[in-house]
Every structure is written in C-alpha cells, then in structure tokens.
C-alpha cells in the first residue's frame, strides 16, 4: 500500500469518527480530540493506526455505551469494509 493510499484510508477513518462525534455534539468531538492530544499526543486521523486509543477514551467517557458509538463509526465505514486495512481497523476497535 503506497503513502497516498494510507492517507486516503486515514482520512476515511477520521471522517467516520468525526461524523459520529459531531452528531453527538461539537463539545464531544472537542473532548475526545483534546484527550487524544493530551494523553497520547496524537490527532483523530492517528486513530487509524491506534484504534485502541479511541476505544479507551470513549469507554472512559461513556462507559458501557461506548459500544454504540463504535457501532456508529463502523456503520459509516461499512461501504469500505471489504478493504483489508479498514477491516483491520474495525476489528481492532470492536
């Protein structure tokens, strides 16, 4: 997979995450993004390589309900789930 392809997939994943969080509310997105920056020194697109960061932050914030937010992210990526890297991201975040 070339660099451009990785960037596209990163953007796709970031878009799915942002969409799910912004649907809840802008402060939710800001809180998640800030925690990512403070705790792991990374940004939303970096969750493509580290889905466990996002999972932990959502779990800390929303407890048992974090599964539903993750499902929403997975649904946004559904059309691309046949692609192996996206499939890998989806399995890792579950």
């Amino acid at each position, binding site marked *: 997979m070339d660099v451009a392809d990785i960037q596209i997939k990163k953007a796709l994943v*970031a878009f799915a995450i*942002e969409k*799910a969080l*912004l*649907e*809840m*509310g*802008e*402060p*939710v*997105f*800001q*809180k998640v*993004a*800030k*925690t990512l*920056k*403070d*705790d792991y020194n990374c*940004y*939303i*697109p970096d969750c493509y390589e580290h889905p466990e960061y996002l999972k932990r932050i959502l*779990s*800390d*914030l*929303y*407890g*048992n*309900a*974090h*599964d*539903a*937010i993750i*499902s*929403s992210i997975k649904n946004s990526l559904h059309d691309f789930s046949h692609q192996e890297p996206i499939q890998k991201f989806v399995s890792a975040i579950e």
Partner: protein
Amino acid sequence: MRTTLDAVLTKKYLVVALAACTVVILASNFISQDTAILVGNLTYIPAAGSLLILSLLILARFGTTGHHGVAWFSFAAYAISLFIAEMLWIVQELYLQIDPFPSAADIFYLTSYPFLLMFYVSYLQPVKNAITKKMIIASLVFSVGILIPGLYLALGPSTDADLFDVILGSIYPVFDAMVLIPALIGVSLFFKGQVNLMWTLFCLGTISTFVADSAFLFAQSEDSYYTGNPMEIPYFWNYVLLSFGVGSHLVLFQKSKTDKLEDLR
C-alpha cells in the same frame, strides 16, 4: 483531565449543599411555621435560579446542534419552566397571599416534565443501540414498583380532600415515575463512564422529587401541607442534585483554548 481530587471535592461540596438546605429548612421549622413558609419560599429562588443559570451555561457550551445540543436545549426549557413555576408559587403565597395549589404554577410544573423527557430521549438517542430489553424492563419494574406503594400511601388517608386537587396531586408522582425510566436506563448505560456522575445525580434528583411529590399528595390529603415543611426537603435536594449534575457535565466538557476544530483535526 479531571482528577480524583476534583471528583472528591465535587462530592464534598454536594454533601455540604444538601446538608445546608436540610439545616435551613429544619431550623426555620423550629422557629415557627410562618418562618418556615417564608424561608421555604425564599430558598427556592437560589435553588431554582442556580439550576436555571447552569442550564443556560451548558446550553451556551453545547449550542443547539447535535443530539446533546437538542438535549441541553430541552433541559434549559425544563429549568425555565420550573423557575417560572417557583416564582409564580412564591408570588401567590407571599405577595398575593392566596393558596398556590392548584394554580397557574401547576401549568409550568407540569410543562417541565415533557422537556425533561425530551432531554433524556435526545441524550440517549445516539447510543440507543446499546439499550437492552433487560435495562428497559428493570427500569420499568423499579419505576412502577415505587409508584404503586407511593400512590397507595399518599392516597390512603384521603378523606375530605377536593377530588380535583387529589387528581392533580397524583399526576406528579406518575410523571416522576415516567421520567425515572430513561434516567435509570442512562445510569446503567453509562456505568463506569465519566458522564455517569451526571446521570446518577439526575436519577437521584428524580427519586427525590418522587418522594417529595408523594409526601405533598399525602399532606394535601390530610390538609397539613405548608411551604417549607420538612417533607419539602427532597424538592431542594432535587435542585441541588440537578445543579451539581449539570455542573459536573459543564466541567467535563469545558471549553479549552485549543478547542478550535481546525486545531484538533
């Protein structure tokens, strides 16, 4: 990031606030019933006022977009409705010196319930897929479980009370039990999450209101009710619990200097 010290301090202030309103009401009752009526009425101004201010602050933070935005808009409408109801009650009792129950205040008390329900529904909307049948049944059983004995005890001594007053008084515990269902679902859904503190406080607040509304119905039936009596303490607890709940959410989602969307992407 929220530290353990913050959480402990929040709980410490919460206990102090709950104890303070309890002491104020009990002390005023020790002095005289007239003092209790005056103090009881006046205590509602800071109680309902602080909830109103905090709900407007959190609405300003979340705006009206997104599910949480809609939820906090509904909550602000709930707080406004309650504040108007309390002010109408105070004006009627202290200034016009007429019996405030039943009155126009009840219209605003009753109007507040759909807004609170809308708040719960909107907040739970994005995570509705995580709600299980077990959660719904458990919440339903708990709500009905406290409603039936509550109504039975409250309506038991009813003898010469006005039928309209009894029906109107009975609507409140029923509505409390209804809004308790999504509150309980929220507590179990967000269990172990940081937002759970708010949900737990809201749930305890709703239970406090249910207890106070049942006690109000009981006292109305016996014609022994007066504003500021010790049975009203759970009403004040409700305001304190809701205010701390909103406050904890406001702190959790507080705006920071780096919160520009472009900077976080």
